[in-house]
């Protein structure tokens, strides 16, 4: 079986600071080369804190950003065009802020029709039928179609965003913090809907979030991003209970859990390294209690461990 999504050495470097005449004065590596496989029907969770490159990665995957290096293969076929429409048929995106991802001056019907018309060239009757089908599967009433986005609550707007992604008939969805703007009680509704849709349409998800508990609840595997690199990847049920990378453990220890006393998990500064002047070795070394000389000078490779996971650490934590 071919993988749904295969990334090989995908990286992104942004030029920063402009000199008077052309040319950038510096470069920031937002995403270090990432090699990753997402299997058909899998949900891969991606967690990381702000500035770790998870949104840059997601935008590259749907063609909104051109990768600096590396390649993206979807269901075995390479996608090297920088044309979002070409990506759009195979991979779609659900945005974090449901309201701002809908054009305030278009009706929901106009928003829903665009992918059907432009990506699949459906005629009017066919579009109407398809929209009705999709709305049914995301539990939205058809009477919503002639309203404008501002008339909806966050949860409803997010369903419209999901419906739009489904309309493109892509089999892979990038979910970029799809519930972090929603209230807890609504968040669960949307997450459960996503799980149902996945089963119904045989979808593959890339679920990006900063909320460890949410990611754990929906994912099969989880990749932890730090400073633009995958530092650990592993099965969802193990990665936070038995972390191998010290950063994963720090994340797991920091998440507020009912019944665990309040402790400061880390005494040192939590600043990320300066992206303009990245450290030569492991980016986490300055915060890491286990760091040694070798960590400060060399970048640890992502090496598979005994189980199903892999960690980029010279001194991984024991089980």
């Amino acid at each position: 079986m071919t993988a749904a999504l295969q990334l090989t050495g995908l990286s992104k470097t942004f030029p920063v600071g402009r000199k008077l005449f052309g040319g950038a004065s510096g470069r920031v590596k937002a995403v270090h080369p990432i090699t990753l496989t997402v299997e058909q029907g899998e949900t891969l969770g991606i967690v990381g804190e702000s500035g770790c490159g998870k949104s840059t990665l997601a935008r590259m995957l749907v063609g909104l950003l051109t990768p600096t290096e590396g390649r993206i293969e979807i269901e075995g076929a390479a996608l090297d065009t920088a044309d979002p429409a070409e990506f759009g048929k195979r991979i779609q995106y659900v945005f974090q802020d449901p309201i701002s991802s809908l054009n305030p001056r278009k009706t929901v019907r106009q928003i829903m029709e665009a992918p059907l018309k432009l990506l699949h060239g459906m005629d009017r009757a066919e579009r109407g039928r398809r929209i009705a089908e999709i709305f049914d599967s995301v539990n939205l009433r058809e009477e919503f179609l002639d309203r404008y986005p501002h008339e909806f609550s966050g949860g409803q707007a997010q369903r419209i965003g999901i419906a739009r992604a489904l309309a493109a008939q892509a089999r892979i969805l990038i979910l970029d913090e799809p519930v972090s703007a929603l209230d807890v009680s609504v968040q669960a509704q949307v997450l459960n809907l996503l799980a149902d849709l996945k089963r119904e349409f045989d979808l593959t998800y890339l679920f990006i979030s900063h909320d460890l508990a949410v990611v754990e609840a929906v994912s099969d595997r989880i990749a932890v991003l730090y400073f633009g690199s995958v530092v650990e990847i592993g099965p969802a049920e193990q990665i936070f209970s038995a972390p191998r990378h010290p950063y994963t453990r720090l994340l797991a220890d920091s998440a507020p859990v009912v019944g665990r006393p309040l402790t400061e998990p880390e005494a040192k500064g939590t600043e990320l390294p300066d992206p303009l002047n990245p450290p030569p070795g492991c980016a986490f070394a300055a915060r890491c209690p286990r760091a040694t000389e070798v960590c400060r000078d060399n970048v640890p490779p992502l090496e598979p461990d005994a189980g199903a996971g892999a960690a980029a650490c010279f001194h991984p934590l024991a089980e």
Partner: protein
Amino acid sequence: MMAFLRLLARNRLALVGGVMLSLVVLLALVTPLLPLAPPNVTATGDRFLPPFSEGALLGTDHLGRDLLSRLLWGTRLSLAVGFAAAIVAATLGAAIGIIAGFYGGRTDNVIMRGVDMLMAFPYILLALAIVAALGPGLFNALIAVAAVNVPFFARNIRGITVGIAHKEFVDAARLSGMSNARIILTEILPNVIPVIVIAMSTTIGWMILETAGLSFLGLGSQPPVADLGSMLGEARSALITNPHTSVVPGVMILIIVMSINLLGDGIRDALDPRLKSGALSRPMAATRVDRQGAVPAATGAGLLEVRGLETQFHVKDRVYRAVGGVDLAVKPGECLGIIGESGSGKSVTALSVMGLVASPPGIVTGGAAYYDGDDLIGAPYARLRAMRGRNVAYIFQDPQATLHPLYRVGDQLIEAMQVHQPVSNSAARAKALALLRDVRIPNAEQRLSDYPHEMSGGMRQRVGIAMALANDPEVIIADEPTTALDVTVQAQVLSLLDDLRRSRGLAIVFITHDFGVVAQLCDRVAVMYAGRIVEEGTTREILEMPRHPYTARLMACVPELGQGKRKLASIPGLPPVVDRLPPGCAFADRCPKAQPVCREGDIPLDGEGMRRVRCLFPETGLREVAE
């Protein structure tokens, strides 16, 4: 559209301008139908007839032509040229602006530098140069006026477009297969049009003036055809002897430009989203208080005690009961958590205490907030101001928004102290340094001279906490202080707050939507739903055995770390809108245990001591929820 017209009509001056302009435009339109003397036929025998002469209502000019006729025909021409120039300038300018803003990068640079060069010339010089090149004539004057105004539109629209082009819905449109041209036409343009209209409505009068100016100089309309500018120009030599020849076109120009400007300002106010949201209607310094009924007395239950607080928002004819009777108390050294979803009234409750709810539209309509026995609701502004930050300090969710971006954080800390205490600069500086160290900011000395944007989110929130501590307040109200922070930073900020309340005996009111945070920090918890407390008790009691069905179900919705992949519980439906609260329990529509009696009358917050629940059929154990 109707709402826009209503908004516009409410502005009296704009209405006057609109009526005046409509009259002028109407007159100009019907001019060919009116029984007027021919405007261009000279009759030198009748030169300089004064106004109200027979056969010439407004008199005649130096060639004996009827001024009324010339005025109306001239107005017609001036309006037509002015509007045409405005439309040409707006269309070209908007097209340039949208393209520059949408494509960005080099395209933007090249286009905008060109526009800058155009702007670098004084407009009249530029217009003169254009007319000189093309030759005099009204059409060329139109081109000149339009060209001179293109940069104004281009710059305005470009700015707006840059903002819109980075919105998520544009990315979504790309992924829906839209080409750039289609995105510009269907996604960007509809969002830019209000700005184009605003810019046009405020500049059209100016363009009519510029056209008149060129005609006045003899570069616009050519004799014998009249427009307002050329009429003025021809009357110039008789300004002293026969002033009416100048006054007639002059008054018309005044009327047109005045009415367009008044109407334009009105349109701008009605269309501009920033003005619509009330950003310019300055809120009062303290929330309005209009208490009905008796004020509940203090019971001495805590240092800060809120009794029966009711806060409403009056928007148009709707009344939103954001807070509908809340009782809270917090003792020194204690941390009270208020938990609820968005719209539950938790933030409004906290802001009402110190009169920080924006008025209009907010009004405190009942209850009291006692600080050490004194009621703060309705206290004079001077007293509130002396207490804000001094006795009761706030920490807000977004430290980026609460710190002033143009001042160094050290100066902001020092200012916060000097507002309340007569401390010298050096003493305040030393205290600021100590505060930054207290909130564990590394290199505090250097950080004092940082600007907020030079700090990370976690660091900024620490500065926010340091500022709250600056005057050694007794109560801190923290409104979702860690929601915008990463988990590792959140853990640090929480443990910092916990240390501070233990070491300084602070009373903390901690507002959040996160049960994990509540569990770790708070001693007691109040759960809010639709503006009221539905359950309160110690943190342990609530978390181990929630009694209100809402609390129980909300807790079940929260995924907890360490349980693997699973289906999550959810609450069907949405919270009620607080301007149409149902009678009885607000949660009844979403509650599986609701009975008809739940919807009938007010349900009291009942219980023993501090453990109370607002429910007729409270849960008896967690099992029940799980099943």
